[in-house]
């Protein structure tokens, strides 16, 4: 559909622009402002240039949580994307079952982050939780997310899978539904194997929704804060302390405004950069 050039359309966009500008530009300017100043109180502040950035970039806390964050987000993508695709492929396309599936799958998406944390906090405990009880008492696997760092880490990952795989699956399902039936018929006539159908019909047609799914899951997992906070408070040790928590501690807990602001900007830029890499990588392969 050809769009018409019409600069008056700005009037329609203006409310959105003003609203988002109010919520994004002013705070962002504050952050930038803080990141280059040393502030004691309202009257005494000094320009420090890139000092805070230098300090933050050399801070081992950042390195630690950044590394943990990347491993975590990587795992999230590696598990949720294939799993989501697989679920979307098995979902029935018609009838009551498909509506039921869709509705059940949306339930976890609508639970507040901290309640998700609470559910698993309860579910995983050895004394009162079904999961903890089955693992410890029935299967004899020692499991305690509050004491064991790797247990805690895996639990946070499972929570994310539980919480968000449905979103990936629903997006993929939506992409799959957009494929006309004749493609499947043609493939059957060509005697294509299931794998070939997936590789040459379903995957190419799902590409644009997959891009969205990957970006969303990357961004959101990279910003994860509430679930590990509720479950373990970032522990044991620092095993589940991710970037957002490090930042929050810095800004609200220790009130290190300057470094926290610099940290914020670095954090934001990393997300932008990685998203851009994903975006170009996935759209570039299409051009060739």
């Amino acid at each position, binding site marked *: 559909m050809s769009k018409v050039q019409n600069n008056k359309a700005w009037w329609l966009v203006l409310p959105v622009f003003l609203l988002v500008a109010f919520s994004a530009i002013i705070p962002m300017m504050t952050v930038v402002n803080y990141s280059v100043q040393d502030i004691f109180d309202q009257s005494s502040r000094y320009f420090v240039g890139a000092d805070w950035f230098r300090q933050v970039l050399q801070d081992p806390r950042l390195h630690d949580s950044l590394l943990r964050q990347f491993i975590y987000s990587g795992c999230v993508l590696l598990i949720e994307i294939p799993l989501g695709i697989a679920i979307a492929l098995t979902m029935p396309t018609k009838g009551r079952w498909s509506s039921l599936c*869709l509705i059940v799958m949306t339930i976890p998406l609508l639970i507040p982050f901290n309640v998700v944390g609470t559910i698993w906090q309860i579910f995983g405990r050895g004394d009162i939780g079904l999961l903890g009880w089955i693992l410890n008492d029935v299967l004899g696997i020692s499991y305690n997310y509050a004491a064991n760092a790797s247990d805690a880490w895996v639990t946070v990952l499972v929570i994310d899978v539980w919480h968000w795989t449905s979103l990936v699956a629903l997006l993929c399902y939506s992409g799959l539904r957009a494929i006309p039936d004749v493609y499947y018929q043609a493939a059957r006539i060509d005697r294509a194997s299931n794998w070939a159908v997936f590789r040459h019909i379903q995957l190419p047609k799902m590409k644009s929704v997959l891009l969205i799914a990957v970006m969303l899951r990357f961004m959101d997992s990279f910003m994860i804060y509430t679930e590990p906070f509720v479950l373990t408070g970032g522990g044991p040790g620092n095993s589940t302390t991710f970037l957002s928590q490090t930042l929050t501690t810095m800004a609200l807990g220790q009130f290190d405004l300057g470094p926290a602001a610099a940290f914020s900007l670095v954090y934001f830029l990393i997300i932008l950069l990685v998203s851009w890499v994903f975006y170009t990588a996935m759209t570039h392969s299409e051009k060739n």
Partner: protein
Amino acid sequence: MNKREKVSFKKLIPLWIYLLFLLVPIYWLINMSFKTNTEILGGLTLFPRDFTLANYKVIFTDESWYSGYINSLYYVCLNMVISLSVALPAAYAFSRYRFLGDKHLFFWLLTNRMAPPAVFLLPFFQLYSSIGLFDTHIAVALAHCLFNVPLAVWILEGFMSGVPKEIDETAYIDGYSFPKFFGKIFIPLIGSGIGVTAFFCFMFSWVELLLARTLTSVNAKPIAAVMTRTVSASGIDWGVLAAAGVLTILPGMLVIWFVRNHVVKGFALGRV
């Protein structure tokens, strides 16, 4: 009729397992919310032996508990209304016209979805304090617009592009003014899109805690923040915590129920 369409139960087993995986933790929460604390701590039971509504009674009789729900619902609905009402005209502009800087604007809107809420905690706190909005529902609703408005614009734009622009022109030819056309003809056409958008706005606003907690203290305190109170010196009141958790899931279930057809259609149209 069609061999391919026939749903074989065997093929769906992995799917059932996945759905079970989704539902069991929730069931466990519901199960626990109907137990007394003695039963909870006294050993594992797959369903409440000693069925009680006492935990719910605690919540419904204590104002600080139920006002938490009202606060959350209030700012979520407020956010939904604001997001939809500003996103509808903007999405229309993006779907129908080219204008100066449209691509950049769209991209910039989407980058806001990439900004971690943690980054905005402090500036938001200061901003809303300075204009006297701290601890109000509107503050949280506005803050949530940061990520909901771009999303709403993006989803609605997809739905609107599916409506041929000849419909718009026919309406103008018939003598409709723009607002009249928009309200009477266009909005009913993208009903599913609005349903799906409302669903997503609700979802992201309802589940968010970090900003909501930072921007409120008493008057607009969300339920999610109230829940942290169950941890007290005497330990955790598991039964009440579970009941409160169940109650936070309910509004979501209600929303799904109301927009289920739109959501199913929206997903099925391949346009979400």
